[in-house]
């Protein structure tokens, strides 16, 4: 399955949920906010969201800013 994560193409062997993907990427779930195809996915709903072919994911965190 092909996804775009933060602008980069990624190929996943097995489809799964967003929660599983974050886990596989080694991301601490509390430290990121996630948007799929422009829609914000709440932290509590990540295990209910199944990833689909062609999904565009943005995984975001905080940086310094004024």
């Amino acid at each position, binding site marked *: 399955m092909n996804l775009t994560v933060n602008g980069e193409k990624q190929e996943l062997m097995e489809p799964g949920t967003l929660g599983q993907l974050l886990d596989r990427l080694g991301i601490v779930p509390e430290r990121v906010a996630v948007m799929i195809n422009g829609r914000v996915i*709440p*932290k509590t709903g990540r295990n209910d969201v199944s990833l689909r072919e062609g999904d565009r994911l943005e995984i975001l965190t905080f940086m310094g800013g*004024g």
Partner: protein
Amino acid sequence: MNGDLKLKLGGQEFASRLIVGTGKFSSVEVMLEAIKASGAELVTVALRRFNRERPSDDLMAPLARLGVTLIPNTSGARNAEEAIRAAMLGRELSGSSFVKVEIHPNPHHLMPDPIETYEASRVLAKEGFIVLPYMPADPVLAKRLEDAGCAAVMPLGSAIGTGHGLSTAEMVKLIIADSGIPVIVDAGIRSPSEAAAAMEMGCSAVLVNSAIAAAGIPAAMASAFAAAVNAGYSARQAGIMSRCDHAVATSPLTNFLS
């Protein structure tokens, strides 16, 4: 007057009237020291893409340890729709409802887009956000943003990062005179005296980033700003004397020497 001593924003109270931005610091350590020295309880942050190669850039854990409240900004948004999305993402991450609406499509001057800023602020206030819009120093727009439910307005002193100070002083005074919500000068402040001047004018707080981050010793500059903000606020509360166009003697002028 005692009831006024704390800054009230969105139903919350803050002892410090200095809000600090976290951009442009040479390292996370320098930034944390500066925030500590500033005494700030409110700190702005921006969103960026998560980078697995640079997890040490993560600001959340160290800022959480400081116990400050985060104000995510919507920097990078070019219109209201993008800003609303950024605000939702920021709230997911920060766990607080504060948002600094910041929409400046032109990188040359970074002037806030008044129409998109108004639209995003209106929608986000309805959604229950504590909305702090970065805005042009325009008294008409300030009133519209207040009516739209913003928790404060943040007129610019001068363009972001320029250090040109309170070039909008006369407009900021007009905004303060009419405003029923806190007015916070954001952007352009270069030195503590300018922060004090903003507070003497009647601002409820100031937001400072570049002036601290770009200082020779950021932590020392941060505490200088904290002192200046307090001095300016105290002066305003004490009641500043009015100007007079002719001299008014402070010593007796009786002719006892002649």
